[in-house]
């Protein structure tokens, strides 16, 4: 399946080149039958001021050699026409097979609006001599010195994506190199491909056979490269066995997340967000995770126990795993784009429509399949303005069954990044300067113990004044001891009122329940400012920090 052409993260193609004694050769590329004429987006920066004046001298000026006489090349047929890849095949073979000196390191070159990323690898010399080697044919196998799997990308992709493709190329190259040392895999595949090229070349003029089609039927490596290309375009994720032996898996985070409707992010951002992962977070598994046979049993166990309403801490105790291990597994699931981090479902959670939510047709259809009685747009409209889970699944309005459905809808919407959770962050600040003073009792009437306690605190004078007022106002409602306790608790909490901690975070850190925390916050509301926003984890992933700015190189 071919995904949308507008997709900028996917490769335009994959090219396999090698260089050996028999010179540089483009062995295989995919896709090879791009019938659609490729639009050459040649970057020419023209300015109206650049006027060329050809002098009328006695000397005929030298003429520019035109760059791509494509028509001419196309007529030539013979496999040397310019493909959808911007440059001709022989040119690719020439450019991508680099000198020994810069082999074994990432490779990147940009020509006009197309970028080529790969990892040229010198085949390592260690041949497995111990193996009772070589029938007569083995000796004649062409053994290339160097090969390079190059991904053809759009020039506008970001630097981190280029690095990802280079890493993928390297992984594939190392697997192939290993198989070469084990059983001369590379040599055999090269031979198959070269033979196919020869066969096609031997055909009479005017044939329409493509050497690459033939290679695809004969060579296992070519089929694997086709899989790589298709899977990256489709899923952003590959998992395959080179020569049925070495497993190679790779995840292009940007693409994999985009597929499930989550705005693209990069590995760097995911990594930086992981520092905000806390035991009170939960995870939402994005889809059924097909586990490789070598997968760690911990992952299996964790997946069995995790539900949207469980925190990592809960999972620990249910699955009987140490927290550190759960963190490692979660980290793993996140970097492989198999799960997203959420705050566990809970009735007080406040949800809003994600600012970057995109309602694609595909999503709307998928939604109506899973929940036939609801319309996605109507459901999401209920979240503007934001509502809590309790209000959304209101037991006064909805039957038990409907409530379950509604919970499922929220989970579904979170998974597809249509909803985001808003947390309440707290700041300690003096009250508005226009608000009247709460009371004006002289200092002598106030509770000395409380006054002294307030003096010890390092709070702003205006805040202390208001706190004193609040306490004085409450003197009749509660006993002095209870009041002192409350103030004590509040002062202990002040360290969280710097806008870095949300209510759930404070609940976790102080190990207190929501109602007692809210009671205190309510009591001293006058000196607090609340602000609702997404938590640090989500912010770090979506941050517009310049990590991912368009690569210019």
């Amino acid at each position, binding site marked *: 399946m071919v995904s949308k052409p507008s997709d900028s993260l996917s490769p335009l193609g994959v090219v396999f080149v090698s260089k050996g004694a028999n010179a540089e050769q483009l062995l295989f590329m995919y896709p090879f039958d791009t019938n659609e004429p490729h639009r050459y987006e040649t970057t020419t920066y023209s300015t109206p001021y650049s006027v060329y004046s050809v002098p009328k001298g006695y000397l005929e000026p030298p003429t520019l050699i035109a760059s791509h006489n494509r028509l001419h090349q196309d007529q030539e047929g013979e496999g040397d026409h310019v493909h959808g890849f911007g440059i001709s095949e022989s040119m690719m073979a020439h450019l991508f097979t680099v000198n020994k000196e810069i082999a074994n390191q990432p490779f990147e070159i*940009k020509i006009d609006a197309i970028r080529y990323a790969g990892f040229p690898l010198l085949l390592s010399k260690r041949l497995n001599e111990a193996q009772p080697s070589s029938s007569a044919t083995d000796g004649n196998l062409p053994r290339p010195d160097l090969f390079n799997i190059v991904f053809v990308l759009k020039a506008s992709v970001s630097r981190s994506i280029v690095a990802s493709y280079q890493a993928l190329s390297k992984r594939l190259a190392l697997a192939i190199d290993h198989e070469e040392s084990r059983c001369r895999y590379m040599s055999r595949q090269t031979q198959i491909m070269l033979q196919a090229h020869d066969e096609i070349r031997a055909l009479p003029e005017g044939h329409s056979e493509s050497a690459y089609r033939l290679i695809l039927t004969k060579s296992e490596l070519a089929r694997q490269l086709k899989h790589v290309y298709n899977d990256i375009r489709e899923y952003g994720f590959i998992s395959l066995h080179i020569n049925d032996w070495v497993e190679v898996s790779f995840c292009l985070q940007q693409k994999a997340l985009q597929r499930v409707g989550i705005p693209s992010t990069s590995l760097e951002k995911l990594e930086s967000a992981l520092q905000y992962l806390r035991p009170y977070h939960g995870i939402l598994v994005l889809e059924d995770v097909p586990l490789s046979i070598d997968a760690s049993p911990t992952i299996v166990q964790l997946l069995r126990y995790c539900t949207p309403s469980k925190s990592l801490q809960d999972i620990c105790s249910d699955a009987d795993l140490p927290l550190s291990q759960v963190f490692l597994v979660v980290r793993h699931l996140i970097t492989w784009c198999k799960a997203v981090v959420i705050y566990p479902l809970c009735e007080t959670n406040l949800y809003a429509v*994600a600012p970057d939510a995109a309602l694609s047709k595909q999503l709307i259809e998928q939604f109506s399949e899973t929940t036939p009685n609801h319309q996605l747009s109507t459901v999401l409209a209920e979240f503007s303005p934001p509502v809590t889970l309790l209000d959304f699944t209101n037991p006064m309005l909805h039957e038990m069954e409907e409530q379950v459905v509604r919970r499922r809808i929220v989970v579904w919407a979170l998974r597809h990044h249509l909803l985001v959770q808003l947390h309440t962050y707290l700041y300690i600040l003096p009250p508005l300067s226009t608000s009247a003073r709460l009371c004006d009792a002289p200092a002598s009437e106030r509770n000395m113990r409380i006054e002294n306690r307030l003096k010890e605190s390092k709070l702003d004078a205006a805040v202390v004044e208001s706190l004193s007022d609040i306490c004085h106002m409450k003197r009749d409602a509660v006993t002095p001891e209870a009041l002192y306790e409350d103030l004590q608790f509040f002062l202990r909490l002040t360290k969280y009122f710097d806008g870095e901690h949300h209510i759930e975070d404070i609940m976790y850190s102080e190990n207190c329940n929501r109602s007692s925390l809210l009671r205190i916050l309510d009591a001293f509301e006058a000196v607090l400012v609340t602000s609702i926003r997404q938590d640090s984890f989500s912010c770090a992933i979506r941050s517009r920090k310049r990590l991912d700015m368009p690569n210019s190189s």
Partner: protein
Amino acid sequence: MFAEFDPAIGPVITYQIPETIFTKQRFDTFSAAVITKPELFNRLLKANLNDYKVMGYPVGLDHQKYQRNSYIFNLCFVVENKTHIDSVYEPLVQKCAQYLVQLEQECEFLHNETSKKEQLPKLLLQIFNGLNNDGQCTIRVTPQTTLHLKLSPSFHGKDPASIAPYLVPIFTRLPPPVSPADLPKLDVLSQKICPCIDGFRTVQEMATSVQIDSDLVGRCVRNLQFYGLVTLVPLFLYSNTYVSTDALHNFFQDADAMRDCLEFVKVPARGREEQKGTPTPTAKFSDVFRLYASLRPGLTLKEWCERTNPRSLNVDERKLIQFGLVRGFLRKLAIYPIYNGKESLMKRIDIDCDGSRSLEELSVTYSTSPKDLLKRLVASDRFVFLTK
């Protein structure tokens, strides 16, 4: 770095300015991407090495006076690999190559050994110094040819998006980067438009007031935006809802931004004589922050004003919102009407309301005000509204 094809030894680097970066051996590893085969002539080519990026624009010239009937050269710019901003050099590489072609065609600048030896290194050094020190240079090489080069820092390899007529341009700095004294230096269009930019008028309104086509005004604003002089904010309306974003916390921690903010949101003194002398009172930071934090979804600015009365705190709510929008810690909630009717799509507006167009965008299409459109859509009872 200037490389050419020497008929005797093949690709060589003739000059490296200001100092030698690549040895002969090193150059051979990537010379295929500098002195290329004819297929890649006149194309922008960039090789990323592990320490440098080399970008060039190989050129081949055909004439029987050359030793092999053709002459290949490439003037490359070399930047460190770590840099992100190398795209700003791309147009210059191309332009330089074209200048050199012109010079060669006119006066054999490169063919003539003496002019090449004497002038080219000097020229390269001038370009290097000019761009690195001032970001631009103007070099007169021959009486006919003068090189004009300028880096534009916001260029990222693509053109900026065009400007929707319902957006409001606002200067990024105070005092405005375009002072009245600068006006005569600008082009005619900018001369007319810059004085209109007050942070409250939309592109459309400005176009009406100066009687110029709104498309032209949009292009002029886009140009100003490209050079970082203006930024665009949504139209200020009391019926809008504004909310703080997670960047509000960064504002809380940034003392400079706070000071700027307090200065900016002052209520301007009304024209009364006795007030002229007294400085306008400055609001307290705690008040301003409380105001920002109290902007909530589901609360229009009108309702918010009634509740908080910002004027009593010496805060101009219009400026307060402006400041937040420009600094990016406020955003306007956009309303996206979605057609929800049972019957099949009847009118054009039903199709247009698929959740991808905001109310503002629609109101421009149907040339009405967002407020009226919203009223009508609500009244028709066939739409649901997403705010995000």
